[in-house]
């Protein structure tokens, strides 16, 4: 019923420059995520850290096709999408450290990153809860007649929440400009999604609402770009919602400290071979668009940027106690 969308190995989808920009984004997220682990280990943040390493191509593929004023809702695992949508890594680190220069002045934390200036309506700690909210932003866009599109990212496990069902139905009957992006990384926390649904492809679920659905290799950034671009165009042209299931894998545990007893090292290693950044880098090198050296240089520059942002966050102040009582309403 479904064909896995993949890119053409023999040629790039975008120009050399655009491809490089995409690679840069991928690496930025990766470096940011690696630094986040250091941050967490240093005891500089509260709560839990839900990493995105391995899934970067989904965020970058989708967000690269969006305008600044398009809307997004995401989950606790969301710094990747934030960066891809254009968020400041300074403010992200600062928020993770609970500092006053953070996106939410340190009051939200990593699970609640919000940046209204880039349409980033808010990360969510409740599985599935962002899905109807993004649908509502799409409702706004349609009602106001802007051509904005709303996208919501969620995991495979979220498709078992009641609101998922309710929101998809609403989006369908009202033909709202929303794109549902399901990042199927095979697990919801420690539970294999295969045990939790009867469906091989979660995309099947969208068909029950008459929503066009595709499955895509979520580690193939170009393939993601392509299906996202089609979905977004459909939404912008009043064609209603689309469901994208991106098959991917998180290379780290669900959260830092996860014992990962539910999967084998072999499985993880197999997927590491399909690392989205490696794949895209290799392709560009093979096709002669970039060189190893260029990539190394790029990585190094990004590392410096990330380090600088980290230092900025470290030096940012604690929020004032007065902040406790502001923003309640």
């Amino acid at each position, binding site marked *: 019923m479904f064909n896995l969308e993949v890119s053409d190995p023999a040629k790039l989808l975008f120009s050399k420059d655009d491809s490089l920009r995409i690679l840069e984004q991928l690496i930025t997220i990766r470096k940011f995520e690696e630094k986040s682990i250091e941050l967490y280990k240093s005891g500089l943040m509260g709560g839990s850290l839900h990493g995105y390493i391995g899934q970067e191509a989904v965020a970058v593929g989708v967000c690269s096709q969006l305008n600044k004023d398009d*809307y997004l809702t995401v989950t606790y695992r969301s710094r990747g999408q934030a960066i891809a949508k254009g968020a400041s890594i300074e403010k992200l680190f600062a928020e993770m450290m609970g500092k006053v220069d953070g996106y939410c002045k340190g009051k939200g934390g990593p699970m609640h990153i919000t940046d209204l200036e880039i349409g980033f*309506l808010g990360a969510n700690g*409740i599985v599935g809860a962002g899905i*109807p909210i*993004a*649908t509502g932003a799409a409702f706004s866009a349609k009602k106001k007649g802007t051509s904005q599109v709303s996208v919501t990212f969620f995991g495979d496990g979220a498709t078992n929440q009641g609101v998922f069902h*309710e929101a998809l139905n609403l989006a369908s009957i009202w033909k709202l400009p929303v794109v549902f992006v399901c990042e199927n990384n095979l697990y919801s926390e420690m539970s294999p999604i295969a045990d939790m649904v009867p469906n091989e492809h979660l995309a099947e679920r969208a068909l029950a609402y008459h929503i066009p659905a595709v499955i895509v290799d979520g580690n193939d950034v170009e393939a993601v770009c392509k299906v996202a671009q089609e979905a977004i165009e459909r939404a912008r042209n009043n064609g209603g919602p689309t469901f994208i299931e991106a098959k991917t894998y998180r290379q780290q545990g669900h959260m830092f400290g996860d014992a990962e007893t539910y999967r084998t090292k072999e499985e993880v290693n197999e997927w590491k071979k399909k690392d989205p950044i490696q794949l895209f880098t290799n392709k560009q090198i093979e096709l002669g668009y970039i060189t190893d050296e260029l990539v190394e240089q790029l990585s190094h520059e990004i590392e410096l940027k990330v380090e600088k942002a980290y230092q900025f966050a470290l030096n940012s102040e604690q929020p004032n106690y007065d902040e406790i009582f502001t923003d309640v309403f």
Partner: protein
Amino acid sequence: MTRQITYAEAINEALDEILRDDESVFLLGEDIGHYGGVFKVTKGLYDKFGGDRVIDTPISESGFIGLGIGAAMTGLKPVIEIMWIDFTLVAIDQILNQAAKFSYMSGGQSKVPLVIRTQGGGGRGNGAQHSQSLEGLFAQFPGVKVVCPSTPYDVKGLLKSSVAENCPVIFIEHKMLYNTKGEVPEEDYSIPLGKADIKRKGSDVTIVSLSRMVQFSLNAAKELEKEGIDAEIIDLRSLAPLDIETVIESVKRTNRIVVVHEAHTTFGWGAEIVSRVQQDAFDYLDGPIIRVGAEDVPIPYNLELEKEVLPQVKDIVKAVKEALYIEVK
């Protein structure tokens, strides 16, 4: 110019004016459109403003409240009807984990100007799942305002203010009040949230209540008057914000206080009033504060049992006498 209209008509007028004056407002709910709502509160609005402004929804309360949140965050002002307050329980994550917390979690970036109109209370033999008084549940959560009007005048004026707020408001009507009549001016007016209203001046005892229990308290005051007891009746109008000052000021004059609500007594909101009064006016109290509330059982179907479970005028009279040590428990 004032005229006598019903509580339901007053709400209808308020909605009519709000829809007329503010293009960003739209109504969302089950059977509120063509049919005009099962309590006829939205009667005529669909014909007047069309299906784009007065929208019938599927039975997906989580979904369409979530959609309302997304719409509210992006510039619209949804006024949502939840047909019975008991049904808010299927959607309470969206109300209390999402709408109520977004402003705070985002450091003040996301505002959710969303009004949820609903109706609660017993008295019609609707049984345990259709008779609850849940205002105290909502008031436990910072981030939402909770309004419970008792008269046609108040319901119109408070609804207009509620829609003008820049935060989520739970607006709780009472099913037994819809057909009660009262004076409502023809001129435009609104009533600010957070101002209690002294519905009767008195000097011997303060009775604090809201919603349907205000009329019961006024009736009790009439009974008491016959026996030479002069009761002051305070209508809180809203639980959040809570105008405790008006209560304290009154108690300092009367030295006796009875709190009346239809919610269950134990862990009901009356306890908050008790706590604040004994804290701020301890030395003024001539005796314990008495609470009158529903018995701590689900609301029974049988109309006689239901009456016995819910507070009645006679219970208020008795409580006042107890507070005045005229009758001993």
